[in-house]
């Protein structure tokens, strides 16, 4: 079983990201579970969402404490939240930042930085970073196919909004695949 | 046209001799017609009509709780609508269930404008539990929880104006009536039941036991309420006052003095100041509704 923890701020679509990754993984024949860290946080507050992926039925219901993967929607979170807490060796951290690195992660954790905000602003016209980060996650982990992610995004958003979000995800996907992130 | 021959209220019920509510309900059922479902909240009416297995109701009838009659009626109306059925939904409840504890459900049902008619038989206190005050108890009435005493003149508050509250909800038809004017009462029920949407009638229903008069005086006391201006029969259509019964007004003491609940205004000595306050209420009613001939 692989576990993903998404760190974001209220309003950034962390829960949606978790759900769409689960939907995409399920489409690929994997058993998936996605859920938020249930809270009363409002816009701007640090929030978390979780995904579990497995070849077997997932029964575990606790939150994710030792993730294989993390997504950090906003690198400013790193100041106040220990986003790398409990990460497994060999894990992958995808961080949205304009910087190229310099984060202290546990031993053996691979950090992929990507300027998802820039991509989102250019493709969607809004700082909606979650779809770009889903694309980066797909490329970095191989857990989900891009076409499945595309379908998942299209299943959630309509028309032009779906198109621009898919473009955003695609760009991030290709950047990470090409090692340009 | 009201069919006065309709008799859907069975003998054998356990109301007090001379009960205003029982008399009013017989008239209500004539005005409502045969194709009707009645909802009653907990109260005197419910208790005196339905000790298992003896029911006084010859129309379909349901009691659920004290404060939820309007919500139960909402559900019945929704169900009938879904089934394409024609029955009218009629709530008949006392003033406690209506103006106090059931106000939330009542407000909700009227805001949603279910096609129901809610009738409050107003006997101006909680008669079922032993004559405690309600939000409909008139000023200065002595009840078991607003007793007159050496430093109390009885109920300190004026009647809550529920007809106005429900008219403000946008009810297409709100009326008041009195059992002492049966033709008017039955016609208003017929109008309310046949008006689409949530309609309301508040019926003045004197209670011989609770108010303190002999059972043969029920209608006479009801008439005095109208004649003194302490109760006004009127109709509001879409929130606009249409019609109020005009009277040549008598002094309020003619109404007050025949009821034990106001006895403290006259004994041990006549309290001019308090009687004047009640006269002022009647005067205000007369001015508001333009009832003076």
């Amino acid at each position, binding site marked *: 079983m692989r576990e993903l923890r998404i760190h974001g701020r209220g309003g950034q679509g962390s829960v949606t990201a978790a759900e769409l990754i689960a939907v995409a993984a399920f489409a690929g024949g994997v058993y998936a579970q996605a859920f938020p860290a249930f809270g009363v946080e409002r816009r701007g507050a640090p929030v978390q969402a979780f995904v579990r992926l497995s070849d077997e039925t997932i029964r575990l219901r606790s939150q994710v404490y030792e993730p294989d993967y993390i997504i950090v929607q906003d690198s400013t979170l790193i100041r106040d939240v220990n986003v790398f807490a409990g990460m497994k060796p060999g894990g992958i951290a995808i961080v949205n930042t304009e910087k190229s690195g310099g984060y202290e992660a546990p031993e053996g954790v691979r950090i992929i930085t990507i300027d998802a905000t820039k991509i989102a602003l250019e493709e969607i016209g809004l700082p909606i970073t979650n779809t770009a980060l889903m694309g980066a996650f797909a490329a970095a982990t191989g857990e989900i196919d891009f076409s499945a992610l595309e379908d998942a995004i299209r299943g959630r958003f309509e028309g032009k909004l779906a198109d621009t979000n898919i473009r955003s995800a695609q760009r991030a996907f290709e950047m990470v695949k090409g090692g340009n992130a | 046209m009201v069919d*006065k021959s309709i008799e859907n*209220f*069975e*003998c054998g*019920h*356990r109301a007090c001799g*001379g009960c205003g509510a*029982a008399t009013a309900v017989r*008239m209500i059922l004539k005005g409502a017609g045969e194709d009707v479902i009645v909802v009653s909240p907990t109260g005197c009416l419910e208790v005196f009509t*339905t000790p298992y297995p003896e029911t006084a109701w010859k129309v379909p009838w349901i009691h659920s709780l004290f404060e939820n009659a309007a919500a139960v009626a909402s559900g019945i109306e929704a169900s009938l609508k879904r089934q394409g059925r024609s029955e009218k939904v009629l709530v008949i409840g006392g003033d406690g269930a209506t103006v106090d504890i059931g106000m939330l459900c009542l407000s909700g049902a009227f805001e949603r404008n279910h096609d129901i008619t809610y009738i409050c038989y107003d006997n101006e206190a909680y008669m079922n539990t032993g004559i405690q005050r309600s939000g409909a108890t008139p000023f200065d009435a002595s009840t078991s929880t607003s007793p007159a005493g050496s430093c109390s003149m009885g109920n300190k508050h004026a009647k809550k104006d529920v007809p106005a509250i429900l008219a403000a909800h946008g009810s297409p038809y709100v009326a008041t009536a009195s059992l002492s004017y049966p033709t008017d009462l039955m016609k208003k029920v017929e109008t309310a039941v046949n008006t689409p949407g949530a309609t309301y009638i508040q019926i003045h229903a004197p209670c011989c036991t609770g108010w303190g008069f002999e059972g043969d005086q029920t209608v006479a006391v009801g008439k005095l309420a109208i004649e003194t201006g302490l109760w006004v029969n009127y109709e509001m259509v879409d929130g606009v006052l249409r019609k109020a019964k005009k009277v040549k007004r008598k002094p309020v003491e003619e109404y007050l003095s025949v009821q034990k609940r106001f006895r403290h205004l006259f004994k041990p000595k006549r309290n001019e100041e308090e009687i004047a306050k009640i006269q002022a209420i009647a005067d205000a009613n007369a001015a508001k509704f333009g009832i003076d001939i």
Partner: protein
Amino acid sequence: MPLNIGCTARPGRGRDNKTGSWRVFYPIFTEETCTGCEICVLLCPEGCIEKKGEKKYVPDLDYCKGCGLCAEECPGDAITMEKEEK
């Protein structure tokens, strides 16, 4: 007789309770002064006054509680209340 599920009843047994036993005074109807207005029929809280013929109204004494409302409101003073004596 087994209980009705949910504590329900069909009409019928309401009349089992003979409220005539509550009565201290009983009404006497006089045809001569009756106007046939039927206000007594309408106002009776029991609904126990029946029309049996022209100006002939009869209270069902199984149910009449003797409240006297009919007598009080009769415009022709055609109803009087008498004490039950045995």
